[in-house]
Protein backbone atom coordinates (compact mmCIF):
# COMPACT_ATOMS: atom_id res chain seq x y z
CA UNK A 1 0.00 0.00 0.00
CA UNK A 2 2.71 2.21 0.84
CA UNK A 3 4.27 1.51 -2.52
CA UNK A 4 1.05 2.51 -4.29
CA UNK A 5 0.78 5.67 -2.33
CA UNK A 6 4.30 6.53 -3.13
CA UNK A 7 3.78 5.84 -6.85
CA UNK A 8 0.69 8.02 -6.91
CA UNK A 9 2.54 10.76 -5.19
CA UNK A 10 5.39 10.55 -7.68
CA UNK A 11 2.99 10.64 -10.63
CA UNK A 12 1.12 13.63 -9.32
CA UNK A 13 4.04 15.46 -8.02
CA UNK A 14 5.35 18.20 -9.99
CA UNK A 15 8.90 19.18 -9.85
CA UNK A 16 9.30 22.78 -9.26
CA UNK A 17 12.56 24.07 -10.43
CA UNK A 18 13.74 27.30 -8.77
CA UNK A 19 13.38 30.29 -10.99
CA UNK A 20 16.82 31.61 -11.70
CA UNK A 21 16.72 35.22 -12.66
CA UNK A 22 19.33 36.10 -15.14
CA UNK A 23 20.19 39.75 -14.98
CA UNK A 24 22.08 41.00 -17.90
CA UNK A 25 24.33 43.86 -16.84
CA UNK A 26 24.63 46.79 -19.16
CA UNK A 27 28.03 47.32 -20.58
CA UNK A 28 29.19 50.81 -19.62
CA UNK A 29 28.85 53.23 -22.41
CA UNK A 30 31.62 55.65 -23.21
CA UNK A 31 30.93 58.99 -21.52
CA UNK A 32 32.45 61.98 -23.20
CA UNK A 33 34.33 64.58 -21.13
CA UNK A 34 31.82 67.29 -22.08
CA UNK A 35 29.01 65.27 -20.50
CA UNK A 36 31.10 64.73 -17.36
CA UNK A 37 31.91 68.43 -17.06
CA UNK A 38 28.25 69.42 -17.48
CA UNK A 39 26.95 66.80 -15.07
CA UNK A 40 29.51 67.42 -12.32
CA UNK A 41 29.89 71.15 -12.95
CA UNK A 42 33.61 71.04 -13.47
CA UNK A 43 34.87 74.44 -14.58
CA UNK A 44 38.17 74.77 -16.35
CA UNK A 45 39.83 78.14 -15.91
CA UNK A 46 42.09 79.54 -18.59
CA UNK A 47 45.27 77.56 -18.44
CA UNK A 48 47.21 79.05 -21.37
CA UNK A 49 48.36 82.56 -22.06
CA UNK A 50 48.87 83.93 -25.52
CA UNK A 51 51.45 86.51 -26.45
CA UNK A 52 48.69 89.02 -27.07
CA UNK A 53 47.22 88.42 -23.61
CA UNK A 54 50.59 88.97 -21.94
CA UNK A 55 51.28 92.10 -23.97
CA UNK A 56 47.84 93.58 -23.24
CA UNK A 57 48.17 92.97 -19.51
CA UNK A 58 51.77 94.21 -19.45
CA UNK A 59 50.77 97.43 -21.21
CA UNK A 60 47.98 97.91 -18.70
CA UNK A 61 50.46 97.54 -15.82
CA UNK A 62 53.04 99.85 -17.40
CA UNK A 63 50.49 102.58 -18.09
CA UNK A 64 49.98 102.77 -14.33
CA UNK A 65 53.48 104.24 -14.07
CA UNK A 66 54.53 107.73 -15.13
CA UNK A 67 55.80 106.92 -18.60
CA UNK A 68 56.74 109.17 -21.52
CA UNK A 69 54.39 107.50 -23.99
CA UNK A 70 51.20 105.48 -23.80
CA UNK A 71 51.99 103.76 -27.11
CA UNK A 72 53.59 100.56 -25.89
CA UNK A 73 54.37 97.50 -27.98
CA UNK A 74 56.86 94.64 -28.00
CA UNK A 75 59.71 96.82 -29.25
CA UNK A 76 59.22 99.54 -26.64
CA UNK A 77 62.30 100.06 -24.50
CA UNK A 78 61.95 100.86 -20.82
CA UNK A 79 64.72 103.44 -20.63
CA UNK A 80 64.63 105.24 -23.97
CA UNK A 81 60.93 105.04 -24.90
CA UNK A 82 59.28 105.00 -21.49
CA UNK A 83 61.82 107.28 -19.79
CA UNK A 84 62.39 105.00 -16.83
CA UNK A 85 65.49 104.96 -14.71
CA UNK A 86 66.84 101.77 -13.15
CA UNK A 87 64.69 102.07 -10.03
CA UNK A 88 61.54 102.73 -12.06
CA UNK A 89 62.37 99.73 -14.22
CA UNK A 90 62.61 97.52 -11.15
CA UNK A 91 59.34 98.94 -9.83
CA UNK A 92 57.77 97.89 -13.13
CA UNK A 93 59.38 94.45 -13.04
CA UNK A 94 58.05 93.75 -9.54
CA UNK A 95 54.58 94.93 -10.62
CA UNK A 96 54.75 92.58 -13.62
CA UNK A 97 55.87 89.74 -11.33
CA UNK A 98 52.75 90.30 -9.23
CA UNK A 99 50.53 90.48 -12.32
CA UNK A 100 51.72 87.18 -13.78
CA UNK A 101 52.95 85.40 -10.63
CA UNK A 102 56.46 84.94 -12.01
CA UNK A 103 59.86 85.89 -10.60
CA UNK A 104 62.54 87.53 -12.73
CA UNK A 105 65.95 86.11 -11.87
CA UNK A 106 68.77 88.59 -11.26
CA UNK A 107 70.46 88.04 -14.60
CA UNK A 108 67.25 88.57 -16.58
CA UNK A 109 66.23 91.56 -14.49
CA UNK A 110 69.59 93.26 -15.09
CA UNK A 111 69.54 92.61 -18.84
CA UNK A 112 65.91 93.30 -19.77
CA UNK A 113 65.62 96.22 -22.20
CA UNK A 114 62.26 95.87 -24.00
CA UNK A 115 58.67 94.97 -23.28
CA UNK A 116 59.02 92.07 -25.73
CA UNK A 117 61.72 90.50 -23.55
CA UNK A 118 59.36 90.66 -20.58
CA UNK A 119 56.60 89.01 -22.62
CA UNK A 120 58.94 86.23 -23.73
CA UNK A 121 60.07 85.60 -20.17
CA UNK A 122 56.51 85.47 -18.85
CA UNK A 123 55.44 83.03 -21.57
CA UNK A 124 58.43 80.82 -20.80
CA UNK A 125 57.91 80.82 -17.03
CA UNK A 126 54.21 81.23 -16.48
CA UNK A 127 52.58 78.32 -14.66
CA UNK A 128 49.02 77.60 -15.83
CA UNK A 129 46.28 77.65 -13.21
CA UNK A 130 44.79 74.33 -12.04
CA UNK A 131 41.37 73.05 -12.98
CA UNK A 132 38.77 73.82 -10.36
CA UNK A 133 35.88 71.56 -9.33
CA UNK A 134 32.71 72.81 -7.75
CA UNK A 135 33.08 71.14 -4.37
CA UNK A 136 29.46 71.75 -3.41
CA UNK A 137 28.34 69.28 -6.05
CA UNK A 138 30.76 66.65 -4.87
Amino acid at each position, binding site marked *: MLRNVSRQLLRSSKVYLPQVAVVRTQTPAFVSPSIISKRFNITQSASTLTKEDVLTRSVSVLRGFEVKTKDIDLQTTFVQDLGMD*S*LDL*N*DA*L*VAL*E*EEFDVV*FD*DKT*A*NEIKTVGEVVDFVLANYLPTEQSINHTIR
Partner: protein
Amino acid sequence: MSQASRALKAYRNALRATSVAFKNDLPTLNAARNEIRTHMKSLEDPKGTNRSIDERLKLLEEVTVFLRRNIVQGRKVDEDKYRLNIHKDTELGDNDDIKKKKDSPSSGGFTGCCGGSGAKTS
Protein backbone atom coordinates in the same frame (compact mmCIF):
# COMPACT_ATOMS: atom_id res chain seq x y z
CA MET B 1 78.73 91.49 -8.33
CA SER B 2 79.07 95.20 -8.92
CA GLN B 3 77.71 97.66 -6.42
CA ALA B 4 75.02 98.78 -8.88
CA SER B 5 73.86 95.19 -9.43
CA ARG B 6 73.83 94.60 -5.70
CA ALA B 7 71.82 97.77 -5.15
CA LEU B 8 69.20 96.88 -7.74
CA LYS B 9 68.93 93.34 -6.45
CA ALA B 10 68.48 94.63 -2.90
CA TYR B 11 65.84 97.09 -4.11
CA ARG B 12 63.89 94.39 -5.96
CA ASN B 13 63.99 92.06 -2.96
CA ALA B 14 62.85 94.88 -0.68
CA LEU B 15 59.84 95.60 -2.90
CA ARG B 16 58.95 91.91 -2.96
CA ALA B 17 59.24 91.77 0.83
CA THR B 18 56.83 94.69 1.22
CA SER B 19 54.29 92.72 -0.85
CA VAL B 20 54.59 89.87 1.61
CA ALA B 21 54.56 91.98 4.77
CA PHE B 22 51.76 94.36 3.78
CA LYS B 23 49.58 92.16 1.63
CA ASN B 24 46.13 93.71 0.97
CA ASP B 25 47.12 96.80 2.97
CA LEU B 26 47.61 99.32 0.18
CA PRO B 27 48.28 102.47 2.25
CA THR B 28 51.02 100.80 4.30
CA LEU B 29 52.44 99.03 1.26
CA ASN B 30 52.71 102.29 -0.69
CA ALA B 31 54.18 104.13 2.29
CA ALA B 32 56.83 101.45 2.77
CA ARG B 33 57.74 101.44 -0.91
CA ASN B 34 57.92 105.23 -1.02
CA GLU B 35 60.26 105.23 1.97
CA ILE B 36 62.52 102.63 0.37
CA ARG B 37 62.53 104.53 -2.92
CA THR B 38 63.37 107.82 -1.19
CA HIS B 39 66.33 106.27 0.57
CA MET B 40 67.53 104.62 -2.64
CA LYS B 41 67.33 107.83 -4.69
CA SER B 42 69.08 109.92 -2.11
CA LEU B 43 72.81 110.25 -2.75
CA GLU B 44 73.40 111.28 0.81
CA ASP B 45 72.33 109.25 3.78
CA PRO B 46 68.87 110.64 4.68
CA LYS B 47 69.42 109.85 8.35
CA GLY B 48 72.54 111.99 8.34
CA THR B 49 74.74 109.32 9.86
CA ASN B 50 77.21 109.33 6.95
CA ARG B 51 77.02 105.64 6.32
CA SER B 52 78.76 104.32 3.25
CA ILE B 53 76.78 102.93 0.30
CA ASP B 54 77.78 99.41 1.27
CA GLU B 55 76.51 99.98 4.81
CA ARG B 56 73.23 101.38 3.52
CA LEU B 57 72.80 98.42 1.19
CA LYS B 58 73.51 96.03 4.05
CA LEU B 59 70.83 97.83 6.08
CA LEU B 60 68.36 97.48 3.21
CA GLU B 61 69.08 93.75 2.98
CA GLU B 62 68.51 93.38 6.72
CA VAL B 63 65.28 95.36 6.48
CA THR B 64 64.14 93.02 3.69
CA VAL B 65 64.71 89.99 5.88
CA PHE B 66 62.94 91.69 8.78
CA LEU B 67 59.92 92.54 6.62
CA ARG B 68 59.60 88.95 5.46
CA ARG B 69 60.27 87.13 8.70
CA ASN B 70 59.34 89.40 11.57
CA ILE B 71 56.25 91.31 10.55
CA VAL B 72 52.86 89.64 10.87
CA GLN B 73 49.57 91.24 9.95
CA GLY B 74 46.63 90.91 12.29
CA ARG B 75 42.92 91.42 11.79
CA LYS B 76 40.56 92.02 14.67
CA VAL B 77 37.90 89.28 14.70
CA ASP B 78 36.45 89.80 18.15
CA GLU B 79 36.62 92.32 20.92
CA ASP B 80 39.91 90.96 22.22
CA LYS B 81 40.94 88.55 19.49
CA TYR B 82 43.07 88.98 16.40
CA ARG B 83 43.57 86.58 13.53
CA LEU B 84 47.24 86.61 12.52
CA ASN B 85 48.45 86.10 8.98
CA ILE B 86 51.37 83.79 9.73
CA HIS B 87 52.87 82.70 6.41
CA LYS B 88 55.64 80.41 5.25
CA ASP B 89 58.35 83.06 5.67
CA THR B 90 57.38 84.03 9.20
CA GLU B 91 60.12 83.30 11.69
CA LEU B 92 58.95 80.83 14.28
CA GLY B 93 61.01 80.11 17.37
CA ASP B 94 61.34 76.67 18.86
CA ASN B 95 60.75 75.53 22.42
CA ASP B 96 64.45 74.88 23.01
CA ASP B 97 65.15 78.60 23.27
CA ILE B 98 62.88 78.87 26.29
CA LYS B 99 64.49 75.90 27.99
CA LYS B 100 68.02 77.32 27.75
CA LYS B 101 69.26 78.62 31.09
CA LYS B 102 70.40 82.18 31.09
CA ASP B 103 74.07 82.58 31.88
CA SER B 104 74.64 83.71 35.46
CA PRO B 105 77.83 84.52 37.42
CA SER B 106 77.38 81.48 39.69
CA SER B 107 76.68 79.02 36.95
CA GLY B 108 80.21 77.69 36.92
CA GLY B 109 83.58 78.69 35.63
CA PHE B 110 86.36 80.67 37.20
CA THR B 111 84.66 83.96 37.77
CA GLY B 112 84.30 85.18 41.25
CA CYS B 113 81.31 87.02 42.53
CA CYS B 114 81.19 90.56 43.79
CA GLY B 115 84.50 91.41 42.09
CA GLY B 116 86.33 88.54 43.70
CA SER B 117 89.71 87.14 42.69
CA GLY B 118 88.30 84.62 40.37
CA ALA B 119 88.21 81.59 42.60
CA LYS B 120 86.32 78.67 41.20
CA THR B 121 82.80 78.42 42.45
CA SER B 122 80.88 75.22 42.67
